[in-house]
């Protein structure tokens, strides 16, 4: 039972990550720097929202539905990492955040794909097929901005410096995760995943002439429900229509 609870907590945190990041990406619709990237990022936003729905279905307990989980919980009940709830900022912040998140997601997906729990391994493989394109999109943008001269590389470096700690906080373990690792359901815990993420991210940043900021330690928060004001504002707007007429079906 403890294992099932831990599994549900992990899936919920993951679903919240995808929902909130999907929401942030969707806020760019219509205003990306070029029309083609606008279309591409919009597809990525739709994928993330779709992934959130799939993960909520897996994490839903009795009487819970993806919509009720997404639209019916207060901010403190959300388990997303604070990295994804941040305002979009400029295109450098958006691309760096997406890239850091996509690389973390790749590590998380690889761990889950190796899980003996067949249904989760299958889910991971399904999501990975679309996440592969997300990584490609953020990587080609990061690559161009980093190599197109001092100005754009400077902005990318600034974004990296600002986001690095919160990206590390993606790997703050959701409660009860050790039970999953101990039971062999999870091949690697959050700490080990963080190590794999850094070893994957550092060489690529170095190749692009970017400095990896000194990590000031994982700042806990999102995974245990402590969020920034940005999430409350986001959820307040996101749920405004559904709250306006509670018994309505939309």
């Amino acid at each position, binding site marked *: 039972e403890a294992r099932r609870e831990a599994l549900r907590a992990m899936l919920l945190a993951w679903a919240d990550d995808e929902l909130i990041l999907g929401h942030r990406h969707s806020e760019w619709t219509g205003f990306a720097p070029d029309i083609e990237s606008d279309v591409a990022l919009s597809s990525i936003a739709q994928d993330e929202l779709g992934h959130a729905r799939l993960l909520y279905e897996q994490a839903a307990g009795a009487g819970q539905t993806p919509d009720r989980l997404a639209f019916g919980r207060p901010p403190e009940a959300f388990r997303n990492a604070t990295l994804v709830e941040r305002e979009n900022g400029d295109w450098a912040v958006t691309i760096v955040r997406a890239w850091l998140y996509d690389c973390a997601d790749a590590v998380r997906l690889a761990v889950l794909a190796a899980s003996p729990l067949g249904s989760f391994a299958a889910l991971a493989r399904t999501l990975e097929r679309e996440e592969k394109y997300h990584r490609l999109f953020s990587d080609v943008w990061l690559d161009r901005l980093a190599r197109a001269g001092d100005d754009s590389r400077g902005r990318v470096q600034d974004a990296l410096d600002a986001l690095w700690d919160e990206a590390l906080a993606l790997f703050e373990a959701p409660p009860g995760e050790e039970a999953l690792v101990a039971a062999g359901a999870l091949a690697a815990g959050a700490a080990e995943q963080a190590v794999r993420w850094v070893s994957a991210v550092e060489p690529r940043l170095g190749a692009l002439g970017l400095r990896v900021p000194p990590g000031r330690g994982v700042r806990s928060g999102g995974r245990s429900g402590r969020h920034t004001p940005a999430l409350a504002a986001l959820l307040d707007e996101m749920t405004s229509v559904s709250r306006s007429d509670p018994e309505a079906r*939309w």
Partner: protein
Amino acid sequence: MTVPPEAADEPEQLGAFEARLAAGDRVEAGEWMPARYRAECLRLIQMHANSELMGALPEREWIPRAPTLARKMALVAKVQDEIGHAQLLYRVAEDLGKPRTQMIEELIAGASKFHNVFHYPAETWADVAIIQVFVDGAAMQTQGSLRSCSYAPYARVLKRICYEEDFHIRLGLDSFRALAEGTPRQRAMLQDALDRWWQPIMHFFGPRDQVSPHLETMMRWRIKVKTNDELRQQFLRQFVPVIQEYGLRVPDPDLRWDETAGQYRYAEPDWEEFRRVIRGEGPRTKARLELRQRYHAQHRWVREAVARWALAA
């Protein structure tokens, strides 16, 4: 943009051109065309592209507030389609001789037009359903007719645009039905949105056609395939029943089907408001252009970086 005088084209070339069109041939980007034909096609397609790019904005405001995951994903996909249509249309317009960057600069500076309906606010969630059913439904009439226009690249791209617009209308009808058959508040919100959007929608096809040399040339050159009135009637025949089907009130008390004339009668729209809006004085024109200007300025460093990168690539 002053339209070059027709006389500038050699008479025989013009004659041969018109004969080919009359025989059903179409015109490709690489072929000779009268300067006026090029100017009229560019004006039409650039305005259509502008309208798709600006047309995304009213519904876009509701993406962050869509009330369910399914509505949110469908709305993001629908607005994405409009941006995709702008991409397709600017590309067609470009080959008539104006780079996309220039067309976007003109739009943002308020120097080139876009459809009247996108100068209006989307005040409630019900506005999204009204736009998807009635505004997309209206646009479908014009776009559907232009699939047989004479400029071949435009006709080809309209096939895909109409294919995707069809999903938008069905998506809109699903939201429309959910609100019409929903709680009293939902139904009232839907009727209120319909009431607010009816006049801009009746304006959408433009004033009643006066026979004019200009109109005659546009029809002969098949840059215009149906008149404004034909398109408006076609729209009313298809979409007034949708309002009646769900027991909502048609916002124009004078609107009725005239059996003998075989068309709808309706209250004469206020064409002065239409002209004012088209000039760029609509309720949301300034706010939306300013929003576009703000993002355009914010992204200048990205455009410069990409240009520097392209030179090196």
